[in-house]
């Protein structure tokens, strides 16, 4: 703890240096380099992340309260007390922790400017606050960054569902020229040539001789399976504590699952997605061509304009909404569904709109209640720690993120303890993101 404190103070003084007007990038580069060499040994964690149990083989297995329940055909869709679908777990603590470093390390991009976390930021629901994310070229990519919460339960990835595994997904953005812009040769060269990564990969993959892309993908997948959000106030309600939701939120839940609004027919509990492709006919932003979505990877006209049904867990954190971020607020997104079937389909497009899209004629009050309920799906208690130092010496997430963080720290000084929600009646954990804030000060393996 003592060492930690001093590191924290270093950060503050660096922040002051920043105010003194030094070049951002330079400061971060030098700071990080210095710290990286200080902490030359990156020991990976030996303990599983919270909510995971280490089994006899040393693999981390997810444990949740939903194990108490069944579901039809074990598909993990249903109502309040329904088991979860099949999921990915069974990675080692070292693989998960290596994935964490890789995830936050801009070394993975073509020019060291972006990490996975640049578009999947922990404090923004593992998305960003952009309609469409900005890649390494500085230009916007065609679609918005989906949340990564609970991806362990999915078997389709990307908005158009073109990847079947997290591993397959992981290499997509890495090598997409518009996203992180890297290529396998350069990525392997920078990882193999790094002071720390070779030994870290050795810890995570003791069997293999040198770093390969496959291990990068495995580690990134391992880390992402630890992003579990199943302890929202809604979950407390589901497990039987009905005071966890306010009266308005319960009203909202009943509208949400009613057969008038029909939200829950696709955003099915407990994950609030059925992980299917649906054609709902949302509009593209001005000037953007119509996005054919799943029609392309599935080579099926009937799927034109189809996109994956996204989870609504932590949805309040991930505005703007829809595949190209055209809707600024949850209220606007909910309102889309009551404006009429196919109302935003461009002239000349023939889409097979999903049968649940109809004209429910929801009132303004009903839409407000749905939004109230969606806020009760927030749980970020298992937000992982952002590494304070990365093997590359680059600032975690990216330079821009580090700068904004630094600015905040300087402006607000040492943060006080996070305080619990003042809504005591709800009796529920509004501990969102506190782990992140609190544990920033803790270095090394907090589970040791």
């Amino acid at each position: 703890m003592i060492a930690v404190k001093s590191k924290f103070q270093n950060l503050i003084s660096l922040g002051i240096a920043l105010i003194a007007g030094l070049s951002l990038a330079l400061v971060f580069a030098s700071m990080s380099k210095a710290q990286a060499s200080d902490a030359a040994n990156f020991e990976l964690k030996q303990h599983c992340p919270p909510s995971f149990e280490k089994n006899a083989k040393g693999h981390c297995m997810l444990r949740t309260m939903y194990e108490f329940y069944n579901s039809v055909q074990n598909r993990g869709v249903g109502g309040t007390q329904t088991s979860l679908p099949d999921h990915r777990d069974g990675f080692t603590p070292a693989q998960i922790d290596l994935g964490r470093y890789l995830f936050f390390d801009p070394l993975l991009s073509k020019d060291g400017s972006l990490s996975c976390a640049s578009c999947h930021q922990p404090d923004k629901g593992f998305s960003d606050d952009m309609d469409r994310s900005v890649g390494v070229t500085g230009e916007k990519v065609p679609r918005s960054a989906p949340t990564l919460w609970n991806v362990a339960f999915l078997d389709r990835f990307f908005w158009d569902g073109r990847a079947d595994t997290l591993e397959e997904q992981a290499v997509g953005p890495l090598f997409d020229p518009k996203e992180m812009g890297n290529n396998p040769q350069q990525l392997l060269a920078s990882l193999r040539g790094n002071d720390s990564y070779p030994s870290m990969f050795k810890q995570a993959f003791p069997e293999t001789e040198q770093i390969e892309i496959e291990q990068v993908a495995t580690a990134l997948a391992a880390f992402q399976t630890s992003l579990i959000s199943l302890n929202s106030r809604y979950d407390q309600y589901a497990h039987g504590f009905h005071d966890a939701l306010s009266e308005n939120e319960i009203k909202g839940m009943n509208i949400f699952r009613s057969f008038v609004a029909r939200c829950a027919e696709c955003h099915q509990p407990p994950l609030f997605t059925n992980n299917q492709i649906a054609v709902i006919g949302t509009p593209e932003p001005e000037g953007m061509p119509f996005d054919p979505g799943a029609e392309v990877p599935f080579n099926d006209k009937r799927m034109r304009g189809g996109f994956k049904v996204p989870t609504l867990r932590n949805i309040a954190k991930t505005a703007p909404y829809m595949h190209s971020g055209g809707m600024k607020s949850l209220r606007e997104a909910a309102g889309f569904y009551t404006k009429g079937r196919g109302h935003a389909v461009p002239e000349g497009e023939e889409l097979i709109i999903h049968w649940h899209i109809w004209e429910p004629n929801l009132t303004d009050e009903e839409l407000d209640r749905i939004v109230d309920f969606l806020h009760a799906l927030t749980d970020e208690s298992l937000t992982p720690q952002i590494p304070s130092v990365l093997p590359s010496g680059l600032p975690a997430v990216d330079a821009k993120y580090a700068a904004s963080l630094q600015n905040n720290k300087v402006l607000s000084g040492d943060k006080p303890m996070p305080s619990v929600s003042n809504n005591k009646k709800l009796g529920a954990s509004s501990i969102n993101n506190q782990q992140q804030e609190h544990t920033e000060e803790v270095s090394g393996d907090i589970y040791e």
Partner: protein
Amino acid sequence: MSKGKVILSAVLIAAAFAGGTYYGGKNSAPVITSSAGGASFTGGYDKSKDIQAQAGTTEVVDLKATGNVIVVNEGELIMDAVKAAQPGDTIQIMPGTYHETVYVDKESISLVGVIKEGERATLDGKGVLNDAILYSGNNFVVENLKITQYKGNGIMGQAGNNFVIRNNVIVDTGIYGIFPQLGKNGVVEHNVISGIEDAAIYVGMSDNIQVAYNDVFESVAGIEIENSRHAIVENNYVHNNTGGILAFITPGLPIKTTYDVIIRNNFVVDNNHENFAIPGSMVAMIPPGSGIVVWAGDDVIIEGNIITNNKTAGILISDHISFGNATGDPDSEPYPDRTMILDNLMMDNGYDTIDEVKALMLTEFKQGKPDIVKVGGGIDSCIINRHRYVTVGVDDWKECDFTNTDNIDTYLLDSPVPPRDIDPSERGKIAYLGICTGCHTYSGTMIGPPVQTIQALYMDNPEGLAEWIANPTKKRDDFPEMPPQNYLDEETRLAVAKYMLSAKN
């Protein structure tokens, strides 16, 4: 609607020509099979292999005898009784009118309407409320109610195993009358349902279902079994709907199959109602006058029904490609395999059929009013006594090697689906890992203090810890106050306290 009527394509017409192995020649004598006695169906679902089916009681819902009765009188809220109810309780609703949405997210609750001299407890949505009854708990019973004027569904389940929906009258109510979804082991019987924009009874993504003795009429679909397995639809009176009884696989849903469906001993008559479905809904494609429709569902047995006066056809069997406006779903198998048609009384069907069926008949040089129409792919189907009916598309079907389903009394389980068996020590561990570790580590400091510190305080007092987590107080200035964990039941709280105090790392 317009797209839905496109029942055929040129490809399929060509395919129909390829059939015709059964008759051999036009004038050979038909095979006459007596269905009195003979072999019974033995295939399909083997209940003894279902781990959730165990010998025991024969009740669908095993209600605890210890439950209390809570009486609701007119002027009171049914929901107040639901909130007060404990698992096992019965809520008796006295005659009168009630205007509310009743939602039951608890186990083992019975809602029982009291009928006095024909006066029922009536839930009236007055055209403004969404659904009348929503339930998600297991072992749910709802009976003897009258439900009217809701915008959504009359009775809707989202999960919930072991349910009984019985003796309800549901009129002029929204989209589905009775819609149990994602449940296992349930009965829908003795209900009267009419005036529904979609299916009067819609069993969705469920297993082990009995739909019997219902009177369903003047709805778009009478009874629909969709993406469900092991369902029996029997002894229902299904009349004046657009389509009578449907066995569907709807693509785009998370559960992809329908199989083991027995449709037997129903009256399926006069289902010629105009289709008034909501545009875009799956049933909007059904041509008025469809008695029984099998759309991609597998292992559907149709036996002993009286199927008369349905103007398009008595029985329609189709795949996703030839009929309807199916959404794209690579995981959904589009062909109806192993349709089995045993003896049915079929008369006066297909007297005003659609052009697409007429065209299909021409390909087989057939005339008259079609009783049975099969279009598109699908394998291993069979029929007996086919010479009795006007058919199209079934000439190449083989003879069934059984004549009845007498061996299958029900697909309901022998005893209710039990709750998942969790060892008490596992219970504590799961709650600890699933909840506590979000804030506490063994020796480190996260949001809350280390587990070691808690162990030192409560080492021999798990009861004290269990008590404290239900009603925590602020103890430490340097930590946020813990939220109460009283959503865990008492047993789980004690189990988790014991587990936490014994944790070694």
